[in-house]
């Protein structure tokens, strides 16, 4: 219809003259880097530990590269307009996680890296399946209520199994241990997004003003019901499963989505009050949680009592040993943390061996992942998709904050997997599903609209913003 913009490649035969850049080439180039960096790390571990490149280096590189390529091809096929940063960040984080776990395997009797690689493969397979099979993410909204029932079952199921290290969040079947709460995250995000997209108007309906000079408005009692229901459930999860992190994550996710959907600051106030009350209640009643708070306030109390350093103290020692530049991969002693060094405390190994520099890079990668999720949410044109994108991105953000803040003594420690990095099959599979959904959402967000002003995604964006403001 119009002449091609200068600098773009000559138009292909069957496509319109103006087309948005798909940036699949950028994604492929970034993927090469995202595979090479972990392979380099894998070699560095071997060189530091045995003075030789580990024998499995080529196989490891090939496996990671193969996974990345499969995922890339699926994206190329089904989501050609997807954000080119999402997949490489996922591959890089997953690859680095494997390197860190492999590095810790060298000093423990059991090897966790091979299993983690298989789980990663499963995760990428699921990613590919979602990207290939889910033609339109909006289909998910239809199954929202089925999803929430499934989520509740998944969350309650582990309470029938014996507690592991004080938390009932695992199901052990035939030697495999699953953490169903991880899968429940995605289902709940879908449900919240669908529910809130439907009931936006009612939720936004203002209730009483509590502060005359402040814009704090309480929601009406009628819509308060669902909020209290979610709060009760997440508290129930906490009490039954003794899993503070997951309950915090669910509740935080719900409050954020509620706020984004309704725009009522009152929701935040209620959320804060309820979570504070819940935290206080559980903190005083549950000794498991209470000791975590005590550790947070006094990480060195056990040393002063002559009992030696606790896990959190060991974690802090690991971070401080890393300093600015880190000891180098394979040169640290984060294994001193002992139990959960490969899962909850994996970040301490990154902190010790990659230093503040490496840790900052990791945090920024997560930040970028979250930002791209939000960007997809902002660009998308309908409320369910927008809330879903914001919800999924917020899951990653909250999860990173809760566990990273926990192991660095910023907040009380709660068991939770560092997305992609930590050992744990359920977690890595779930995170790949999250990235798959974000890819589909960003593809929708950037895909040109059919019609006379095709390609002007901004039009869609303003339209959506306009309805919001009304």
């Amino acid at each position, binding site marked *: 219809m119009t002449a091609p913009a200068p600098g773009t490649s000559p138009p292909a035969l069957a496509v319109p003259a103006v087309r948005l850049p798909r940036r699949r080439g950028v994604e492929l180039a970034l993927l090469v880097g995202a595979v090479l960096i972990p392979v380099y790390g894998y070699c560095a571990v071997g060189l530091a530990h045995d003075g030789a490149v580990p024998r499995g280096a080529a196989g490891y590189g090939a496996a990671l590269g193969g996974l990345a390529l499969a995922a890339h091809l699926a994206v190329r096929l089904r989501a050609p307009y997807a954000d080119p940063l999402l997949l490489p960040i996922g591959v890089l984080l997953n690859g680095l996680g494997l390197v860190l776990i492999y590095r810790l395997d060298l000093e423990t009797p059991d090897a966790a890296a091979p299993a983690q690689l298989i789980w990663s493969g499963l995760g990428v397979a699921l990613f590919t399946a979602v990207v290939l099979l889910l033609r339109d993410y909006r289909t998910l909204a239809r199954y929202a209520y089925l999803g929430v029932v499934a989520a509740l079952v998944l969350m309650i199921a582990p309470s029938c199994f014996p507690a592991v290290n004080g938390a009932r969040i695992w199901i052990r079947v035939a030697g495999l241990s699953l953490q169903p709460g991880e899968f429940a995250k995605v289902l709940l995000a879908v449900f919240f997004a669908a529910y809130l997209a439907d009931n936006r108007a009612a939720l936004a309906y203002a209730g009483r003003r509590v502060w005359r000079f402040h814009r704090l408005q309480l929601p009406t009692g009628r819509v308060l019901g669902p909020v209290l229901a979610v709060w009760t459930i997440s508290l129930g999860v906490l009490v039954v499963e003794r899993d503070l992190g997951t309950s915090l994550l669910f509740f935080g996710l719900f409050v954020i989505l509620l706020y984004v959907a309704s*725009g009522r600051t009152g929701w935040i106030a209620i959320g804060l009050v309820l979570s504070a009350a819940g935290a206080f209640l559980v903190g005083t009643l549950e000794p498991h949680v209470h000791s975590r708070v005590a550790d947070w306030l006094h990480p060195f109390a056990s040393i002063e009592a002559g009992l030696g350093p606790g896990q959190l103290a060991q974690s802090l020692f690991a*971070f*401080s040993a890393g300093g600015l530049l880190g000891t180098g991969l394979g040169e640290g002693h984060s294994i001193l943390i002992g139990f959960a060094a490969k899962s909850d405390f994996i970040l301490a190994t990154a902190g010790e061996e990659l230093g503040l520099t490496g840790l900052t890079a990791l945090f920024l990668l997560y930040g970028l992942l979250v930002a791209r999720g939000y960007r997809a949410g902002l660009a998308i044109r309908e*409320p369910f998709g927008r809330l879903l994108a914001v919800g999924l991105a917020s899951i990653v*953000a909250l999860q990173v904050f809760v566990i990273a803040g926990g192991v660095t*003594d910023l907040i009380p420690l709660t068991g939770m997997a560092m997305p992609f990095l930590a050992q744990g099959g359920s977690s890595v599979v779930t995170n790949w599903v999250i990235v798959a959904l974000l890819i589909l959402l960003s593809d929708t967000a950037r895909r040109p609209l059919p019609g006379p002003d095709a390609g002007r995604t901004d039009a869609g964006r303003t339209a959506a*913003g306009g309805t919001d403001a009304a």
Partner: protein
Amino acid sequence: MIPYARRAAALCLLLLVALLVNALRIQVVRAPAYDANPANRRVPIERYGQPRGDILVGSRPVTGSRSTGAQLDWVRTYADGPLYAPVTGFSSQTYGTALLEAAEDDILSGSSPGLSALPLWNAVSRQPQRPGHVRTTIDPAVQKAAYKALGGKKGAVAALDPATGRILALVSTPSYDPGTIAGTGPQALGAWRRLVTAEDQPMLNRALRQTYPPGSTFKTVTAVAALVSGVVTDVDRPTDSPDPYPLPGSTTALGNESASAGCEDAPLRYAYVVSCNTVFGKLGDDVGLRAMRETAEAFGFNDPSIGVPSHPAVSVFDRRMDRAQLALSSIGQYDTRATPLQMAMVAAAVANDGTLMYPHLVDRTTDGAGLPLEVTGQRAYRQVMDAAVAFAMQDMMVAVVRHGTGRNAALPGALVGGKTGTAQHGEDNRGNPFAWFISWAKQSRGAPAEVAVAVVVEDAAADRADISGGGKAAPVARAVMRAVLAH
């Protein structure tokens, strides 16, 4: 919806910033405190992550390291552990370090900044510094001779090169093998418990860390004080000293071991050779507290700063005494106490014509490749006496060995001077006495002295005469001097 989503995004950004600031806090700001926490195992892991530098005797290392493969990888080993334990001390993963292992720890563990040609590069690359080595002044032949001569007896030997201050031998028996307590675990714990509870204190370094009443060997100091202060001007002129000698201000009288020795009014030389308590008690009183103290301190008494580089126990000559106490102190009794090293320094000062050289145990420290880092220079500790006094003293000490109480130390074809001592201890002096012998040896008159030695043997039987100093300790000193003169 968009502004709210943006605010939610801003919240995520806030969380990210909180994480980054907190990471800066624990990895940089608080890191020095965390790194220094005694509960942080990284310090010992790094310390024992590489073989420790060696301590050399002659050109041969007497220490080593072996890999255990455990968390604290390299553990210290000792060749001839009991022989060199008073020199090396121990380096233990459980009990820390002692003696030379402690004094030169920064070189041996590799933490000394001097070991790195590029200190900044090491800080950045985090390469562990290769540890350096420590070469001692010990002469293995002399050390072995002393150890062998002491045999199963409880005692100590300190031998010095009078001209340089080099410590040639440092032996303490019974000894122990520091290798048995070098590691961790029940074996090291059991060995440690046995060693610290053993009645004969095998871990006590008697040559360096134990003070004894020096007994008659201290008469050497009193004689020097008398000559230096001018109380005695001619060693052969009779002194005005009664036998027994009534202690001033006291009803007690001081006698001699043998009443037939002829100590009444005996001249200094004669009194020194037969070891008259009466003459030296009175001489001390005549010299006076101040001058006695000055001479004793010139020899190194009362000086806590002496380091070889480990600090020996401080040898004591009291600063405040009444006249009776001074008289007793002047014959090496009362509160006077000395380490074997201190008494070797007394002999060395006389032998080196009056100049006391600073004693040292470390010849040099080198880096991992053997290039010298620091070479210990010779320096004088004090000019204790002028050469004339020193010559007079040398003559008197030679006389002791020629025809006095020290005949057991005589070496054919060499000039040997010495002084015996027997010190009582315990309540009412009922404990078995300590046998002392201090001496020096040179090839001939006019040649420089090659060795000064002090020997102490504990519980030297019940023979109360000076003879036990000559009988038990002098043969040990002779073996040591012979080993030095042999090459």
